[in-house]
């Protein structure tokens, strides 16, 4: 079986071999079984953590059913976001149009649940039959007095990244619609989705520092906070892929500056705290940050030592959605003695890959928008012991016979922050050292 398609040759590179950055940001090659998801999925996963909003999917039942509670995004309050609503378009709706059904659904749902806002997602079929979703949303907004926002993301119009952009634009419609005063050192956290309660870990660090977190977009999100987001002094952006567009729009329109951070791994987590302190040019905050880092590392490093000893020399393959995470993971793995031999992402851009190629060791394979055939071949070639990826990569790892760590949006263990680093080490240890792999080698 030939592994590499001619067309994909320049999306795969080896560090040291080539000094050019690999090609990226292309549409997937038809038939290559990419690990990417569709546009609708992209916008759904970004918006769904907003816990007190109603999320209605205008389309056949499948789109809503398969994205139901897809992210494990936890909420400290209302849990309306964990219900997946659909207009369940049937054949007659496809033929005669679905706007009446959409109208009736919104009417019933808004009366029943009284959300602070509603998001209406279009799907492939709606994009084709041409329902005027925007008109229905405007009308319902007027009638019900809450923002009813269309998310025009039919699955075929691009890739997951376009879905992110459309989600940001929908969010931007809410920003600036309320105006409440907030404390002095205020930031918004963009791009954390509170998987497994990770956001709560971060909130705790910032609170100990003396920083007030204004809006969390979108983990544990609330509509009112997003409406007031423009009042914060700084946007701290994780997950560059999904939220950068929103950060840029807020800078342009409201003058809110942004910075990119990562909360995975010790170095990046500490930088996240220091950079915020430096931004506010406050020695007080910087001192607080240093104290927190010292305390946490004092607890963490001794706990990590046995894992580092056991895992020294093991090899890992990383294939995740966004490249920024991949970069953090390479660094985090180094801390526990694991070498990265393959690294790739679904949606990385040129800058991301340049960084990765500079960061990684000689002969590491770097790949963009990969597929199961390629990943299996690389993993076997490099004799990796560990695969870090998402749900679509798990079967590849398990069926070839190597350990797997779920670092994707369905994960149940918090892997961000200092606590997260320890959980990460435990998970990696638990899977790499499992005796079962001996029976298949």
């Amino acid at each position, binding site marked *: 079986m030939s592994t590499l398609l001619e067309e994909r040759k320049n999306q795969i590179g080896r560090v040291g071999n080539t000094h050019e950055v690999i090609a990226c940001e292309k549409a997937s090659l038809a*038939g*290559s079984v990419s690990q990417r998801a569709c546009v609708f999925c992209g916008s759904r996963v970004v918006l769904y953590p907003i816990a007190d909003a109603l999320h209605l999917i205008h389309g*056949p*039942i499948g789109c809503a059913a398969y994205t139901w509670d897809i992210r494990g995004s936890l909420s400290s309050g209302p849990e309306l976001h964990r219900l997946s609503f659909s207009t369940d378009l*049937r*054949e007659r709706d496809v033929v005669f149009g679905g706007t009446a059904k959409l109208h009736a659904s919104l009417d019933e749902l808004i009366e029943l649940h009284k959300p602070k806002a509603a998001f209406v997602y279009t799907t492939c079929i709606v994009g084709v039959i041409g329902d005027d979703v925007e008109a229905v949303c405007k009308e319902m907004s007027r009638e019900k007095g809450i923002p009813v926002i269309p998310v025009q993301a039919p699955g075929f119009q691009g890739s997951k990244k376009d879905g992110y952009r459309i989600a940001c634009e929908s969010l931007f419609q809410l920003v600036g619609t309320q105006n409440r005063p907030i404390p002095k050192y205020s930031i918004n956290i963009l791009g954390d989705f509170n998987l497994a309660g990770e956001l709560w870990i971060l909130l705790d660090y910032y609170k100990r520092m003396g920083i007030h977190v204004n809006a969390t977009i979108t983990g544990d999100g609330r509509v009112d906070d997003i409406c007031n987001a423009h009042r914060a002094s700084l946007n701290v952006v994780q997950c560059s892929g999904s939220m950068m567009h929103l950060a840029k729009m807020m800078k342009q329109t409201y003058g809110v500056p942004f910075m990119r951070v990562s909360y995975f791994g010790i170095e990046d987590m500490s930088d996240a705290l220091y950079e915020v302190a430096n931004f506010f040019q406050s020695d007080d905050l910087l001192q607080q940050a240093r104290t927190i880092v010292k305390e946490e590392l004092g607890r963490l490093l001794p706990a990590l030592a046995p894992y580092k000893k056991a895992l020294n020399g093991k090899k890992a393959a990383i294939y995740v959605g966004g490249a920024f995470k991949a970069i953090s993971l390479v660094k985090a793995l180094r801390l526990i003695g694991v070498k990265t031999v393959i690294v790739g992402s679904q949606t990385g851009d040129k800058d991301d890959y340049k960084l990765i190629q500079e960061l990684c060791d000689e002969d590491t394979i770097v790949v963009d928008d990969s597929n199961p055939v390629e990943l299996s071949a690389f993993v076997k070639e490099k004799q990796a012991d560990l695969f870090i990826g998402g749900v679509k990569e798990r079967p590849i790892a398990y069926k070839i016979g190597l350990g797997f760590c779920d670092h994707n949006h369905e994960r149940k263990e918090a892997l961000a922050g200092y606590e997260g680093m320890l959980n990460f080490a435990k998970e990696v240890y638990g899977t790499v050292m499992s005796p079962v792999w001996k029976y298949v080698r």
Partner: protein
Amino acid sequence: MVQSIETIFSVYEPEVIAVHTTCLSETIGDDLTQIVSKAAEEGKIPEGKQVIYCNTPSYVGSHITGYANQVAAMVKFFSTATLKKRNVVNLVAGWMEPSDMREIKRIASVMEARTLMFPDMTDVLDTPLTGKYEMYPKGGCTTEELKTTGDSKFTIGLGEYSTNTACVALDNKCKVKFEITDIPIGLKATDRFVTALSRHANVPVPESISAERGRLIDLIADNQKYFYGKRVALWGDPDTLIPLCEFLVSMDMRPVYVVSGTPGKPFEERLKVILKDIPEAKFKGGELADMFQMHQWIKQEGVDLLIGNTYGKYIARDEDIPFVRYGFPIADRPGHNFFPKTGYVGATNLAIQILNAFMDHMDRTSPDEKVEFQL
């Protein structure tokens, strides 16, 4: 589409590509017949290889509709009648687990009946972990075997909703007569299947199969006081629910709430007959038959047992009801693809799971003074 066909054949080198349409491709009017012939004309389909397809718009019917269509497509594209008839009985498998299919094939082989099952997921979806990854495992039904289905002497379809279309197609195309029986879940349905196979394959029913049957009856008899009068709520696909309800009734349990999202008349008609001695039973199929309705019924008057797919776990948790997972999808428990629920052995497995669910619940919720060593 043409590009995909080219890429897939060059990278993955399969013998067959099976295509399903989605709501999108159906609505924009993609004509698969046209597209595939275009691909063939342009030389994108290598010699001896094939592209099969069926229409599965997501807004028509349910997943069962799609399954039935694709099985019928297998007949449409492969089954061929030659002049030489074979002493083989086709078994068209309805929606079930690889373990269920494995068990049915085992029964056939113990009975020394020559059968050919399609679709056959055994040794394809349940392959062992050997450290070597096989993209195309050695199991299942091959294209060569599929072609010969047109020469079989008879077809038994297992499950009306999922196999009727294919059986009719095979009869029309290759003149192979057929009989549709229920998926062999439970005592009576397995009896019917074994009888049908014995008759059409012209083989006697061996002692060992009767013994399996006897062991099942023995288990039920030993534990009948735990089954007696228990109210059960079930949900899933019609082909599974019909024999399952029949089995529960034969163990003296009372299926009182039954829902299936798959539309179609036969479901309600069959249940009317099966549940005729349970006047309080409520059953529904189609669009408005959903878990919300199920939960409402349960809130009005509770049940002792839930049987269905993972979607019911929230009801099980909220109302603290023993829950046996069965059907599709089961996303939160392993094992259903290893141990069958079909055949006498499968029915025994199912009965044991039901009993364990009851007894775990009893041990967990009984007051201290009532907890005993011996049940």
